[in-house]
């Protein structure tokens, strides 16, 4: 009698979170159709339950032996850590939308749309086949297009959604074109097979055989994913979309969706290009440099809070891209340190960014203005919000005692180690530029407001939970980074 446990175990450990969330998404979708009640906020609770169940499954199999299921889905360090991060982000986003839906009327369809997007994101970080990766990306993207345009009554939301749809579709098409070249050259869509083919003999890499086409494919894939990551020069849609979308969705787009795309880029770099033996990676460093410079400089004059966070996220994506520019053949032995620094920074970035967006929502809702002047005298209105936002901004600026400092330092140490010190120097130099707008907000928070309407702002309990989690994440990873680093070291 065959042992069924042994058969199911690998499927479940590799795909458990994905399966759980898919089920949850369908259940929420059907219940949304069936019940006609006005207040559907309980759907958020149900979605959160689904995410928590997926988290439990993911943590249950945290240290499971890495293996590939159907040669398509894998539970290695990248999949495990990115899955964990994506699920935590999803939980934060649902807390956020729950609070948001209590104040602003939004179509309740967004609950299951977010769930489907998260399923797509999970597929992007855990599959090792170009077809599945692309399907995951499209699932995430299509859901995101709708989510961005969710405020159908607002022209800005619709405009932002359409811009995102157009630019995102171009990005997908460009990416697909790049993937098709890789398939054409190698005859396989499976990344594992591609990797072993390339490393079979010394001259077997795609680049060694077809240098021009491989570089072309590299550029197309990087550009296509660059659209989704809002890297300069593909960032034009970002401020409009973030500004128009409901704030929780802006937070979703700038954290969860970028995490997933970074995960996919990591797969492509590791399996397809790292063994190529070419120096085409400097093309990626051009994007990183442009994003850091342009993102930080354009953010300086921004007065609208969400637009500023949009440009800040462009710059932050540039920081995260730095380790990606070092995946060449000589360095690939160090891929664990590169993966670790990317993962750590994404964790730091997620907590600070979701927290910042959440406070931007609370403040702009309470004061009915999205201008950063709404922050004036925030410490008088709510010391808690002022303190939390200060921590998030210090984290984004990379100050010690917050996760941002350790994250930036890790990336910096990578660049010194792998002889790309100039990128690390640029990372910190552009961070100094970013001081001006992050500390510019801090300046407003602690400025005395002469306005008579200095009413207190009292966020809801759900919102306080969300902010508390983000503050904890930012501080714990800054003061005891070992919590995350040891898990990473154990998985590697």
């Amino acid at each position: 009698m065959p042992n069924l446990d042994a058969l199911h175990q690998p499927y479940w450990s590799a795909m458990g979170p994905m399966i759980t969330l898919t089920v949850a998404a369908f259940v929420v979708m059907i219940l949304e159709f069936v019940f006609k009640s006005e207040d559907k906020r309980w759907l958020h609770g149900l979605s959160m339950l689904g995410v928590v169940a997926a988290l439990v499954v993911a943590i249950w199999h945290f240290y499971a032996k890495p293996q590939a299921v159907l040669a398509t889905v894998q539970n290695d360090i990248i999949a495990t850590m990115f899955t964990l991060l994506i699920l935590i982000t999803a939980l934060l986003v649902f807390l956020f939308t729950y609070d948001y839906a209590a104040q602003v009327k939004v179509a309740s369809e967004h609950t299951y749309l977010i769930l489907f997007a998260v399923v797509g994101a999970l597929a992007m970080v855990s599959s090792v086949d170009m077809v599945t990766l692309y399907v995951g990306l499209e699932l995430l993207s299509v859901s995101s297009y709708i989510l961005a345009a969710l405020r159908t009554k607002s022209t800005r939301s619709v405009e932002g959604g359409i811009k995102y749809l157009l630019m995102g579709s171009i990005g997908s098409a460009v990416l697909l074109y790049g993937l098709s070249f890789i398939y054409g050259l190698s005859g396989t869509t499976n990344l594992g097979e591609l990797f072993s083919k390339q490393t079979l003999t010394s001259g077997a890499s795609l680049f060694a055989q077809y240098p021009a086409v491989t570089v072309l494919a590299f550029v197309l894939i990087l550009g296509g994913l660059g659209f989704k990551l809002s890297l300069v020069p593909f960032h034009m849609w970002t401020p409009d979309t973030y500004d128009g979308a409901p704030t929780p969705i802006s937070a979703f787009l700038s954290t969860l969706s970028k995490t997933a795309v970074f995960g996919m880029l990591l797969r492509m770099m590791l399996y397809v290009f790292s063994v190529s033996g070419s120096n085409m990676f400097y093309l990626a460093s051009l994007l990183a440099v442009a994003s850091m410079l342009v993102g930080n400089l354009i953010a300086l004059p921004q007065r609208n809070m969400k637009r500023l966070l949009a440009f800040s996220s462009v710059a932050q994506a540039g920081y995260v891209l730095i380790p990606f520019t070092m995946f060449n053949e000589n360095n690939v032995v160090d891929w664990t340190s590169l993966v670790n620094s990317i993962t750590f920074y994404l964790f730091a970035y997620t907590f600070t960014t979701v927290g910042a967006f959440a406070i931007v929502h609370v403040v702009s809702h309470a004061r009915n203005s999205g201008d950063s002047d709404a922050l004036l005298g925030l410490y008088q209105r709510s010391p808690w919000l002022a303190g939390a936002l200060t921590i998030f901004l210090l984290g984004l600026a990379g100050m010690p005692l917050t996760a941002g400092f350790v994250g930036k330092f890790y990336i910096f140490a990578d660049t010194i180690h792998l002889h790309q010190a100039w990128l690390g120097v640029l990372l910190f130099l552009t961070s100094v530029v970013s001081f001006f707008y992050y500390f510019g907000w801090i300046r407003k928070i602690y400025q005395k407001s002469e306005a008579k309407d200095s009413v207190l702002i009292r966020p809801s309990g759900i919102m306080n939970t969300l902010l508390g989690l983000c503050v904890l994440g930012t501080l714990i990873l800054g003061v005891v980074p070992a919590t995350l680093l040891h898990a990473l070291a154990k998985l590697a």
Partner: protein
Amino acid sequence: MGLVFWLVVAPLIAGLVILLVPRLGAAVHRGLAFLGSAAALVLTAVAWDQFQYNITGFQHVTALYWFTLPSLWHGANPNGPGNLIIGLSFGVDGLSLPLLALTSLISLLAIVAAKRSVERTREYYFWISLVTAGLLGVFCALDLFTFIAALEITLFAMFFLIYIFGEERRQSAAFKFLLYRGLATVALLVALVGIAYGAAGAYGSQQAATLSGTGLSFDIPTLTNVMHTVSTQAFSSHARSWLFLFLLLAVFIEEAFVPFHTWLPTAHESADTPTSMMLGGVLTKTGAYILLRFGVGLLPGEVRQYGVLIAVFGAINILYGAFAAWAQTDWRRLIAFGSISHMGLVLLGIAALNAVGLQGAMFMMVSSGLLTALLFFLVGAIKDRTETSRIPALGGLSRSLPMLSGFLLVAALGSLGLPLTSGFISEVQAFIGGFDTYPVISFVGVLGVILSAVYLLYAMQKTTFGPLDPRYGELVDATPREYVPALVLTALVLFIGIDPKVIGELFGLSVNALMRIGG
């Protein structure tokens, strides 16, 4: 033992209690901050008392494990990736102990000097405690990461102090401070991390079995050992030069040396009195500490190589600071430029790279710290009464404020290096050291001392003598609370001037350690 660890953590705990415990009164906030700094001072005294003068190297070492950054190194260990271990380690030697004492003392006096009327005491005393903890961490950290983190903490904590509690033009002053010191940190990061990787690489290629360090280490004592055993072939002098120049750039910005000096006078002009005492008394000594600890300590060959450059910059700063101070009409800007002039002397002493010069530089750090804090305190006290610190607007204060004027005179005389004050012993040693190595440059620098007599006495004469402005006839002289900082700082200035042996012994220990490796 953990003594030095608790010394750093004590103000931090005080700060957290102030921040997190709700509904404490202003007096409690102040009392807690006071307790934190007092604990640091007491622990420093204990460490000083238990200090063993026959041991070179660090004492009271607390080496706690903090975290590991995996696979950042594989040179020394060909079989697998090596990890970078970050330690939360602290310890003291002859150089850091007096600076710790200076930091905890001045923070204590700054809290005493803080006005009762200050609003938002929770934030105020939290940031003061955080700055204190950061500065203490800077002076006794034994790990590069911990050191840089502590320095960055002082950066943003001081920003909040200048920005929230500053006076006119505080916005531009705070942002200027942030920009300059932020850039300094970038240069410092490159230099220090670069040195660590360079040393590890050199160690790996040299394969010397006698070395105590293995692979990549951020531990400062280990790094010092490695740096003095690896040959120049293994760690090319070209790379060392570049790293040293980055380090020098960081030092120049941190110390507000010409041409990177503009942030300091504006910051002092805007900051309130306690913040100015911390800024001028302690924070501007971090640069000199970096140059001694990492420049002379890790790259002595480069200090020698670029000695002329450093000495020339030292002389330029002595003269520029003095001339600029002469031209000022505001006491606070005058003191700021005066302290730049003093720190120029530190550069000269370090560039000399002989025992007397180094010891003079160390004395100057402490002496300038005490005198600058004292001057800012007194000028702040006068400004509280006259509502101005502009020199032309003052006059004849010796009649209405005899005690404060008297203290001011002592501080000014100490600053211009009168014998029996700490300024004298520092200047003499730094110049003797300087003359030994760079006679011409030192000769030019001595002119600055004459200038300092000119500008200080000129300002003193304008402020305390001359006809008494009738507006200032009815002022109340120093209150008992104000006697404390004034007396303590004055007593220390005189004590060091009369009996320099007490801290001279400590400094001598460090100088010997530095000279052995440098010479």
